[in-house]
């Protein structure tokens, strides 16, 4: 079973036997992988009917909920080792509140999002004058679900402002699971997808 590049990195960051909550778990691929390979007990939250059907068929625990209503009081404080949100943050109504929620119910948060400041996007907007349409951002401006796009810098600024400590960061593109040297040196320019692991700063 080959995982999408960003999911493979997330999986490698999660300790075996951990408890995981996956916000916007899609078809349950990550949770299924974690269950089968890392003995992870997990739950997913999802809204799409088709994805719910796939999760149920694959025996992935899935709770139908709209993340725009927060976590709906489903979970107590500190009830998970990790709360994951892959490629979902940018499509939520209140990303900042959701990140706070992640750190309320989980010890650590892991997010992945398309980096708006990737050079292709910059070129399309800066030179072409169009809203970027790339492999990681395939939609036109009028039909995109991504209402809160951000860049690597934006995200790190938010973490700084909210007292969130970044534990790990990596950027990848769609084809490679490993970062190139350029990506490591200039993540905000060459990283197509950013992946972060973070926790609450002590004292906050």
């Amino acid at each position, binding site marked *: 079973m080959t995982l999408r590049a960003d999911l493979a990195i997330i999986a490698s960051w999660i300790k075996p036997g951990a408890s995981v909550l996956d916000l916007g778990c899609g078809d349950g691929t990550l949770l299924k992988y974690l269950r089968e390979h890392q003995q992870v007990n997990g739950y997913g939250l999802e809204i799409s009917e088709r994805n719910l059907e796939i999760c*149920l068929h694959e025996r992935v625990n*899935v709770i139908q909920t709209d993340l725009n209503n927060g976590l709906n009081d*489903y979970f107590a404080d500190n009830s998970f080792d990790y709360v994951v949100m892959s490629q979902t943050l940018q499509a939520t109504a209140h990303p900042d509140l959701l990140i706070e929620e992640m750190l309320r119910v989980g010890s650590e948060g892991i997010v992945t999002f398309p980096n708006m400041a990737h050079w292709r996007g910059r070129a399309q907007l800066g030179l072409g004058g169009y809203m970027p349409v790339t492999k990681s951002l395939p939609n036109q401006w009028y039909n995109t679900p991504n209402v809160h796009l951000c860049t690597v810098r934006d995200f790190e600024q938010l973490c700084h402002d909210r007292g969130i400590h970044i534990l790990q960061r990596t950027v990848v593109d769609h084809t490679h699971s490993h970062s190139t040297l350029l990506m490591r040196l200039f993540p905000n320019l060459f990283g197509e997808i950013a992946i972060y692991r973070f926790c609450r700063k002590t004292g906050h």
Partner: protein
Amino acid sequence: MPETLSPDSVGIVIPQTQHFAEPLLLECGKTLEHYDIAYETYGELNAARNNAVLICHALSGDQHAAGYHTMEDKKPGWWDSAIGPGKPIDTRHFFVISLNNLGGCKGSTGPNTKKPGSDKYWGPDFPIITVRDWVNSQQRLMTSLGIDSWCAIIGGSLGGMQVMQWSIEYPALVKHALVIAAAPKLSAQNIAFNEVARQAIQSDPDFHDGHYLEHHSIPRRGLMLARMLGHITYLSDNAMRDKFGRELREGKLSFGFDVDFQVESYLRYQGRSFVERFDANTYLLMTKALDYFDPAREFNDNLVTALERASARFMVMSFTSDWRFSPERSREIVKALLAARKQVSYVEIESEQGHDAFLIPSPHYMKVFGSYMQGIVERL
């Protein structure tokens, strides 16, 4: 009446009855010395004997969940939409057992059957029966049929409550618990509706304190009223509007108290036809079982503690327009299961049909239900 049987029907089924001679101690303290349970089965028990599914019925349900008794039947069993070859509860893979609960009126020991060793009907003397009593009797039926454990127990409404009780009472015997359009206990409003229904029945002059069978009468008006009231709570405001609007039956107002609106005609029809097929004392018993259901009570009113005993995987479903057992009530169950760290999935089906939606095969509902069941089949 089916001219020919559809390939996704379980076909003609033969109701069966199992007699139990071992006394059953009930929660109320009384004992049923011996009793009968009427049931039907669909599909075949496999060689590994791990494909048995129990169906728990709701307030007015019975053992006839799927198929037809004769080719002359007007309607199939009450959950024919979900049970059959290729349906969510796929009888090509599962051995399905559906029974009439004790206190029922369709062949199992209940108020309309005779007391043991007597010519008299049980009538109002039939002991108050609880969800837990049903679960205990269902467990005996399970054993008598040579089944060691259930691969799934499935029920809607009051049926869903039996599923929850099973998972707490006999954790080792339930692998999958499907709780549909249910609640962890009734609200005051739910109990109030039940009380009005009971009052309607009990205040009917033909009720004779429950001894109506001996008086060769039936509390028709009371039972009809109870059913009419129930029916209103099973439908959503929108569903009623869509179905009837304010349509007039005769096209004009009558300026009298006869039926003017279609909805009145419908309710009267539903009430009348119910009287023909249901027993008033059973209706009283079923509503009491609903009122009393509260598995958390003996765990300091903590549903999480109650559910901690369970080891089944849970699948909880609710319907958006259901106000009898609203999605909020199902979420209470889900939250408790999550807090107890149980394997649980939850789906809230968009529906305009109210509480009745759990019996209606809407596409997404059937897909979700079927996907979960298919996941079980592939791991049998």
